[in-house]
């Protein structure tokens, strides 16, 4: 019979801090830069549509006439290329995941007309 | 430490098997086989490596559904790629060591990599049109430049008083020159003289306009080099002068 080689490690883990956290009572802090979900600051958006062209999953839809910017968070793979391609830096990647849902939905945002507002 | 280098060499279709035998005897390592679906046919690329040299042998434009000798008798590892190519591209391999007979991947559509989807077809046609338009434009430009050179030489020889523009021999509507000459040949000699005079006047005006433009450009350059405030003042003065001149011309015209 060989010796119990993992004995030291097994015995030590009785007294060490556990590797897992008691989720959902406690959760690990999300590191900065975690690829969670995309948000759009509509006050800076110019509806150019570059994010729509860059997205590899066709998750973003930009309607210039209706002045809406929509993203399907369930098609998005959190690659971040839209945030990097945006010329006005209005898209950012937030470090929280899209919450679990029972039905798929599309997040549509109304983009206010900055020029019209300034002219008034 | 061997250095990595790669080469692409063509391979005739009949030589696929003999090449494999030669490579195995020469101690080359078999790397892979792949297929590319092109408009002309299916290309097969066999890769072998030895001492850091990766040689890709390209057998171009096999007709769809053709039969090719298998290399699995030399390199058993090729059976995976040959079965895959059979399932996805439709090339049959004769003498496969482990032959799945089309059931390797069991795809829903036969030979899916050879299917051209409507979007792909549209994209390819668009790309072809763009390339054709570009080629036609280049050819027409070259043609026009040649004709323009000839026509200008002819014209200058006939009208020594019409100076070539200051910027160096630009011609106006050269492609119409041949047609004009043809028309003039059949016309009344008085009319011919008038038409030729008109052409000469047009040439002089074009030259004058060119000189004006050149002067303007010079002035702009000077303004850019000057102090911004002064430049603004000069520009305002120039605008006022131009306005006055325009008003004067309008008054004269009335």
């Amino acid at each position, binding site marked *: 019979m060989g010796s119990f080689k993992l004995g030291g490690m097994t015995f030590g883990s009785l007294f060490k801090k556990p590797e897992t956290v008691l989720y959902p009572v406690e959760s690990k802090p999300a590191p900065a830069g*975690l690829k969670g979900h995309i948000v759009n600051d509509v006050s800076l958006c110019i509806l150019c549509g570059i994010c729509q062209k860059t997205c590899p999953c066709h998750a973003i839809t930009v309607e210039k006439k209706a002045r809406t910017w929509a993203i399907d968070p369930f098609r998005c793979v959190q690659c971040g290329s839209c945030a990097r391609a945006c010329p006005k830096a209005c898209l950012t990647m937030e470090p929280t995941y899209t919450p679990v849902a029972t039905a798929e939905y599309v997040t549509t945002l109304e983009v206010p007309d900055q020029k019209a507002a300034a002219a008034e | *430490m061997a250095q990595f280098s790669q080469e692409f060499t063509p391979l005739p279709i009949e030589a696929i098997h003999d090449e494999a035998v030669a490579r195995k005897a020469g101690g080359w390592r078999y790397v892979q086989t792949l297929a590319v679906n092109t408009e002309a046919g299916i290309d097969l690329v066999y890769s072998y490596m030895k001492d850091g040299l990766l040689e890709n042998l390209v057998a171009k434009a096999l007709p769809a559904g053709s039969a090719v000798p298998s290399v699995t008798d030399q390199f058993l590892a090729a059976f995976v790629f040959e079965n895959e190519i059979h399932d996805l591209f439709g090339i049959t391999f004769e003498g496969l060591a482990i032959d799945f007979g089309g059931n390797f991947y069991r795809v829903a559509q036969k030979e899916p990599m050879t299917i051209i989807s409507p979007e792909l077809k549209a994209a390819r046609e668009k790309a072809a049109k763009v390339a054709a338009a570009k080629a036609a434009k280049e050819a027409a430009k070259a043609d026009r430049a040649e004709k323009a050179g000839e026509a200008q030489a002819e014209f200058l020889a006939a009208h020594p008083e019409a100076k070539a523009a200051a910027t160096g021999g630009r011609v106006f509507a050269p492609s119409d020159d041949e047609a004009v000459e043809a028309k003039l040949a059949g016309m009344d000699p008085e009319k011919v003289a008038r038409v030729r005079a008109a052409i000469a006047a047009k040439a002089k005006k074009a030259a004058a306009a060119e000189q004006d433009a050149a002067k303007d450009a010079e002035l702009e350059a000077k303004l850019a080099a000057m102090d911004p405030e002064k430049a603004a003042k000069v520009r305002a003065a120039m605008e006022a002068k131009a306005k006055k001149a325009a008003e004067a011309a309008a008054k004269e015209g009335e």
Partner: protein
Amino acid sequence: MGKATVIPFGPQHPVLPEPLHLDLVVEDETVIEAVPQIGFVHRGLEKLVETRDYNQFIYVAERICGICAMGHSLGYAETVESLMGVEVPKRAEYLRVIWHELSRVHSHLLWLGLAADAFGFESMFMHCWRLRERVLDIFEKTTGGRVILSVVKVGGVVRDIDDAMMAQVIATLDGIMDDYTKIMNTLLTDTSVKNRTVDVGYISHKDALALSMVGPFARASAVNYDVRSFGRGAYGDLADFRPILDDGGDCFARVKVRCLEVLQSIEIIKELAAKMPAGDIEVAVKGAPADGAQASNVLEQPRGECYYYARGNGTKNLERMRMRTPTSQNLAGMTSALAGCDLADVNMIILTIDPCISCTER
């Protein structure tokens, strides 16, 4: 002399990380031959080049496999850069290699756990994956993703690792060394492990060359081939790189080679982190590959040599992108190793090629 029965193995089996089907022709507990069948995860990813341009396709290439994700994005980016004649800044090359070597550490730790699980050593499986979690935490802190990193792009990398973060990375790697040494010691000296791996699935050096095997699977049969020894990119700046070889040719040799490769990768990461040059992390790539241009590339992934081929057609979409993964090359070796083995050893032999069937099928 009994009569032959055919036992189906897979596609779903607790020991397999990915679906693979084998028909084992068995006679009295001895496998006479095995006929592999794959195709359960064929997603037709290579056809997606027609609808995704060369910048978007890198995200498809990453998702070919979860274990080799970094490897595929790196190989694809290098191939397209070679096709378009783009030179990547030095710092980006270093960062790519550091992430790739971390990917190798995580992949080998994953494999060591699975190999232990293949012969029933579940607590070793848990310990290996516990250490692997620390590596995944490094990925999360430096790139934002645990498994799919999305950090390489054509022309460089997307994020930088500053000195403070790099020091944390090195500290984490040092932190796992203590436990990893204990794990390695158990795997390589424990008698139960040896009973299940020594002289199992033997492939001689001659056969390994004839079957064109690649990766640690081949290096355990003394085939001296490792793409990293060509010294391209940041690998060329290493002081000394020697592939780890072993002439055992059996499952035990393959376990040993992978255990030692983890240590080698950690040394490489530390060396490159110390030598990291300052500079840009990306270069802008404009235009499209020329019509008819071809490029090929090889990369040493955790499972072996992976071959990439790209052909351009003048538009932003590539004409053809091909990834030949190491597992597809090793399938012939696996089939020949299974002939003549015991039924109970089938798990171990299949696992020793480190099968990544999703890579094979794309």
